[in-house]
């Protein structure tokens, strides 16, 4: 049950957007820039970063919604999304994305946890400053979205995660 009365049938952040359209607009536009603006990170990589951070924050709605979008961008590969959430260092992704996910994971714990070694590792794997910058901004923004969604205990349908994920 949400902590405040929200429109029924709108899951996760959708219910919050309907509750407060004035803040919804810039929040939606920010997410759109982070996930879709031109840049070297692919849409699938950005969605994977968002999904991984949301799963580390244990945000059911965000990891499910963005996990599905990530899988869509990755040719329907739900298993890969699951592998990234469970242990991205062993997942079938590029070394560059692993280094960026390590940075994102440290941002999730706290901004000061990002160390020069983490940035150096990403650079050695070919990440540009723009990719590192965007990774940190996606991770930080999704920590905010995750806390917004769970801080008000929004509703989300519970039958969405795949069978593999429940076991």
């Amino acid at each position, binding site marked *: 049950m949400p902590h405040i009365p929200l429109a029924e049938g709108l899951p996760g952040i959708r219910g919050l957007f309907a509750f407060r359209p*004035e*803040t919804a*607009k*810039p*929040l939606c*536009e*920010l997410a759109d*820039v*982070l996930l879709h*603006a031109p840049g070297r990170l692919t849409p699938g990589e950005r969605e994977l970063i968002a999904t991984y951070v949301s799963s580390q924050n244990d945000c059911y709605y965000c990891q499910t919604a963005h996990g599905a979008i990530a899988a869509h961008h990755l040719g329907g590969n739900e298993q890969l999304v699951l592998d990234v959430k469970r242990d991205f260092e062993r997942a079938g992704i590029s070394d560059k994305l692993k280094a960026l996910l390590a940075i994102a994971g440290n941002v999730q714990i*706290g*901004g*000061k946890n*990002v160390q*020069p070694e983490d*940035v150096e590792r990403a650079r050695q794997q070919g990440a*540009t*400053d*723009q990719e*590192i*910058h*965007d990774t940190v*901004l996606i991770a930080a923004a999704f920590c905010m979205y995750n806390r917004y969604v769970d801080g008000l205990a929004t509703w989300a349908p519970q039958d969405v995660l795949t069978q593999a994920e429940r076991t």
Partner: protein
Amino acid sequence: MKPMFLPEVESNPQPGPTTDLIHIAQSAGAEYPKIWHLFGYRPQATTHLGAFTHEIMRGDCPLSSGIRELIAAFTSYRNDCPF
């Protein structure tokens, strides 16, 4: 001031109001918060972040601006972010 992790972000400000501010501060030899470089690097994201911050801190709400700033300051303190 400590250098930032990403020199390209610091040396490549994109055209926009924050970049103008950076140039004014630099030409006056004044110190300025390094978050300006983050705002100047991705103006598209900055515009939306600014609109969001403005609405949540100054928009129509029974909480006074002072109380809202206090919530922001308390959260930043808990996150060990002095700025």
